């Protein structure tokens, strides 16, 4: 029996010795690959770190006192009408609303496109039953008019919308309506928000239908026909 014990002991020693050898070899390899790669990219990494630190330092000093603003986009100005034809000199161009409307008598009753007999024929209008001059200003056609008669510039169209859509305006003011870009943290950067008419056509304000483009090819959702389609594409 002692003989067998010796043999087992010898065997275990053998295994341990070979494990140590392997471990030494492994760590040597590891050290090699480490130094090779680390050297090459260390400088890059340092560069990034300093840039980041500088940026953070700059933010730290300024941001606390002067947070960045929430910038709401504004329309560039009153709309201009593209002329269909050309003038005697062969020029096309665009004109302001007032070019025509200053010499025409406003029809305060008009509510639909159907009753227009000369201009704005192709326009789609589905915005309740409000008259054109509920929003457009009959006295100054290059501006809008609030319900109380106050004139409002086209750039401040949101004031106009908010008269009726106060719930949406409230949500917008609290950051719960309307698309945005930029920063959630105003101490680090500004936030840009859409205005009403970026998404809603004022004459037909319901959000347009869209077509789904991108779809993940989820293994479990892919219809069986898809496989055939793929094969066909490969053949082509």
């Amino acid at each position: 029996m002692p003989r067998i014990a010796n043999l087992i002991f010898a065997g275990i020693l053998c295994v341990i010795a070979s494990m140590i050898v392997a471990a030494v070899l492994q760590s040597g390899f590891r050290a090699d690959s480490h130094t090779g790669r680390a050297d090459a990219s260390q400088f890059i990494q340092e560069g990034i770190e300093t840039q980041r630190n500088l940026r953070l330092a700059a933010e730290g000093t300024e941001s606390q006192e002067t947070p960045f603003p929430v910038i709401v986009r504004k329309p560039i100005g009153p709309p201009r009408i593209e002329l269909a034809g050309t003038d005697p000199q062969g020029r096309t161009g665009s004109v302001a609303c007032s070019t025509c409307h200053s010499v025409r008598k406003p029809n305060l009753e008009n509510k639909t496109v159907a009753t227009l007999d000369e201009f704005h024929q192709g326009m789609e209008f589905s915005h309740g039953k409000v008259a054109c001059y509920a929003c457009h200003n009959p006295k100054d056609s290059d501006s809008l008019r609030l319900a109380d008669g106050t004139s409002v510039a086209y750039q401040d169209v949101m004031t106009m919308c908010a008269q009726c859509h106060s719930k949406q305006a409230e949500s917008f003011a609290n950051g719960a309506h309307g698309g945005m870009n930029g920063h959630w943290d105003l101490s680090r950067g500004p936030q840009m928000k859409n205005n009403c008419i970026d998404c809603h056509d004022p004459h037909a304000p319901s959000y347009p239908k869209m077509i789904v483009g991108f779809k993940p090819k989820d293994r479990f959702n892919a219809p069986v026909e898809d496989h055939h389609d793929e094969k066909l594409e490969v053949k082509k």
Partner: protein
Amino acid sequence: MTNHPSLPIIENFSRRAAVKGAFATLGAGAFVAAISPLRQAAKNTTAAEFMQQHYTELSPEQKDEVIARLEAETKEKYGADVTIGDDRPIPGTKFVYAINLSVCNGNGKCVEACHQENNHDRATNQSYIRVLEMPKGTMDMEQGSTTYSGVVPKDDKFYLPVQCQQCDEPPCVDVCPVKATWKEEDGIVVVDYNWCIGCRYCEAACPYHARRFNWKEPEVPAKEVNPDQSYLSNRIRPVGVVEKCTYCLHRTRRGKLPACLEACPTGARVFGNILDKDSNIRWILQNKRVYILKEELGTKPAFFYYFD
């Protein structure tokens, strides 16, 4: 020469020597068998990667080394120059997401933005977001379908985008046998892709089907690789590990909005810091009808849905 045999024949071959030799062979054989997985692994992973510590146990110097290595590997494999940051939580923040289901129309732009932002595999159109087309009158996401197409929104449906809910009681974290996934101070549940063993327990545990498994090495053309990366976020993941939405921590921990929010054409998505009492998120929770998904499970999501 004649005294020596031409072949190394063991003379006086005793029983003792035979048994000794047999055991020695057995020992050597056992050792080779024991380390053979290592030899297999060496083909797929470098030694440095194999010996890497858990993220939370890395010293700053080790982190720098690891990140430099990962950047070099991305350059080598994908031909793209990327910077991998190590973005840590901003003190005093807990990120919360809210989606306005009255506005979402299921167009799927968020899904696409996530795909591009997070360097997902191009062939599978992988993304952390699924948009479910839901029958009206229920908030049970299991009744939803992701295979809708064509013109949206359909009249009798509403659309429910689902991604990681960053639960306060995350079942996925509880089941991880190697602690490769955990919840950070700002509420984001992250994965150390280099520590994950790919057992997919977390994927099974998540009631929101929010985790994704990398069945293959992601293929992303060099031009399309998003170079703004972070270790715990959108760096290109290795094959065989689980990944998930991180609220774009490589953006949000730098103060920016998540990519899915910026991509949303309807403005349905709202993101903010719930610890800031003037934040938009706080206003929504106080003023809107707010739902959470699978409330009965007690996962306490940091993701809210509302109607208005």
